């Protein structure tokens, strides 16, 4: 056992510096991405074309934004199941506000994100102050958000096309060839890395994830930290929805349904412990890219849905078995 770990150490020691500093899970995840691309390229060399890769990164950025929020919550040892309809809500509200007079287009995006943050705050109050298990609170708020959107769509003949700003954010390109969505994702990623490594809030998140009791007794206002984390998750979910609406040029019911499980899977495949307290943001990025590529390659290879589900599930299991295992009992 100890021999093996020493071998491992010496192997790592030979890697270049920045790789050495990465956690093994993150490295493995990036390795899996390369493997996936290689397998894809056996089917069609177009899987390696810059066009295709950029397209994947663009699409991945929506999931990436959502997963960033999910990661904060998972690091605390909680989970946010309200992602689907908070996303939808963010998208629909942004579109709605965009159609609202002169100021509309200007405040559309912030308004959408704000709605998401408020719903996140609601989750946060439930989890932190009422101490209901997060799995349950967020499940309930998801149903409530869905209900609100149904009422809203049915009752207000909503304006649901994306504003030009939303379009631009998701599909435009300040740097020619590089979609803005990717830049947005990079910016949010930089902010997350800063948050996790350089701020006391980030430390508190890890601390609470490891032992909320100890964090509380250390004088951290744990309830506020948890509440804010859910607000961040809600805001980022909604922002993901806004981007998605920009991409699709409109908001629609249930548009977030396809994001919940991939977001959780991405965070976990990136080496974050679902129990909280452990994980690094780069891993989440790797997880997002991995999931997006996997889905896309399976889709383009025209595997029937049944086979696709089986492969998708099996690949996740295999990758977790490779590096997502808990340490042995003894």
């Amino acid at each position: 056992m100890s021999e093996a770990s020493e071998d491992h150490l010496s192997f790592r020691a030979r890697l270049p510096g920045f790789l050495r500093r990465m956690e093994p899970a993150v490295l493995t995840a990036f390795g899996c991405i390369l493997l996936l691309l290689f397998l894809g390229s056996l089917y069609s060399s177009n899987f390696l074309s810059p066009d295709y890769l950029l397209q994947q990164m663009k699409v991945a950025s929506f999931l990436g934004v959502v997963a960033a929020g999910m990661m904060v919550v998972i690091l605390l040892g909680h989970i946010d199941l309200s992602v689907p309809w908070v996303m939808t809500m963010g998208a629909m509200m942004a579109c709605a506000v965009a159609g609202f007079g002169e100021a509309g287009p200007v405040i559309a995006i912030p308004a959408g994100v704000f709605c998401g943050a408020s719903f996140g705050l609601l989750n946060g109050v439930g989890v932190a102050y009422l101490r209901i298990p997060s799995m349950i609170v967020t499940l309930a708020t998801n149903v409530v958000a869905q209900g609100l959107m149904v009422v809203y769509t049915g009752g207000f003949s909503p304006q649901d096309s994306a504003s030009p700003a939303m379009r631009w954010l998701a599909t435009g390109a300040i740097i020619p060839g590089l979609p803005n969505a990717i830049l947005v994702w990079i910016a949010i990623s930089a902010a997350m890395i800063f948050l996790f490594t350089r701020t006391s809030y980030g430390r508190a998140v890890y601390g609470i994830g490891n032992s909320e009791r100890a964090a509380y007794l250390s004088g951290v206002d744990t309830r506020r930290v948890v509440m804010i984390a859910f607000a961040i998750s809600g805001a980022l979910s909604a922002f993901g929805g806004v981007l998605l609406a920009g991409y699709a040029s409109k908001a629609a019911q249930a548009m977030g349904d396809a994001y919940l499980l991939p977001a959780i899977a991405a965070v976990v495949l990136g080496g974050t412990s679902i129990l909280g307290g452990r994980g690094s943001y780069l891993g989440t990025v790797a997880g997002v890219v991995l999931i997006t590529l996997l889905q896309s390659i399976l889709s383009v290879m025209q595997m029937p849905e049944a086979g696709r589900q089986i492969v998708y599930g099996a690949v996740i299991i295999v990758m977790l078995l490779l590096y997502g295992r808990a340490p042995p009992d003894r």
Partner: protein
Amino acid sequence: MSEWRYWLNEQRGTLIGLAIFLMMFSVYIANHPAGLTANVAQTAANKGALLAFVAMAQALVVITAGIDLSVGMIFVLTNCLASWIVVGAPMPTALGVGAVLLTGMVCGAINGLLVIYGRLQPIVATIATGAVYFGLALLLRPFPGGSVNEELADALTGRLFGVVPSSLVALTAVVFLVWLPFRRSKIGRAAYAAGSSEPAAFMSGVPIRRGKFAAYTLAGLLAGMGGLFLTFFTYTGEAAYASGSAYTLWSIAAVVLGGVSLYGGRGSAIGAIFGAFAARTTGDMLFVFDVDPLWQPLLQGIVLMIAVSIGSLALLRVRNRLDWFR
């Protein structure tokens, strides 16, 4: 404290679940145009029993401090399988039933193996196996169809002596044949112990792995029973992704309403049954109250929200803030 106080303390979660259910159900019945007729009871029982099976399955896993996000998909998979093989003469039908239940158990066992021996976190492991099970269901039933032995189906979804819904009888039988033996066996206690504190259980020489494995496997079995029952109820099989995930999510809500602690070690599958019936009644409420159709989902969300918040009333009694953190 006297003996019954200890008993009350042990059963508190289950009793709260029962209370929530009774409260909601009486409001429902009081407002039902037909009142509590045998038909109405049968309808409610059949619908509730389905979720109850899945919720029991979930409860078993939750007691070990795990979670099974694939129960809904096992439910769908066994439904699709049953729509192929639970047909014909009594003998083939019986074999079919056996095979369906075995399939459920195998699915549960795979989850168990991955979680226990693969040392994967239950949440993600079962998300992944759920995808696989759904894929298999889709292979079996690319589109809805199939059939089932209708006599058996009618017998199990009908009424006994014209009044007692047979689905409730079946559910009770399962409680006595599966749950109680498990609860009172060494293995069952190991499952509870592992859920309450795995390191302590390990140090005490409890067969943790066997206990957890049994819990996951029986969960598969119960979900399979649910799938079988779904087939009896609908006469067909359908690989419906949305319905699989809906059952998974509602099973978690049911388990919590039934007083099973998501942190493990506490609660019972009987509570989960009450929780399932309570959760189902939230949907029925919309039927008896005249709510604008577009407002119904919102209302259901709010009812669910209130129901799950009830538990936090206990918070008012907490005087030592450290008790917040389990």
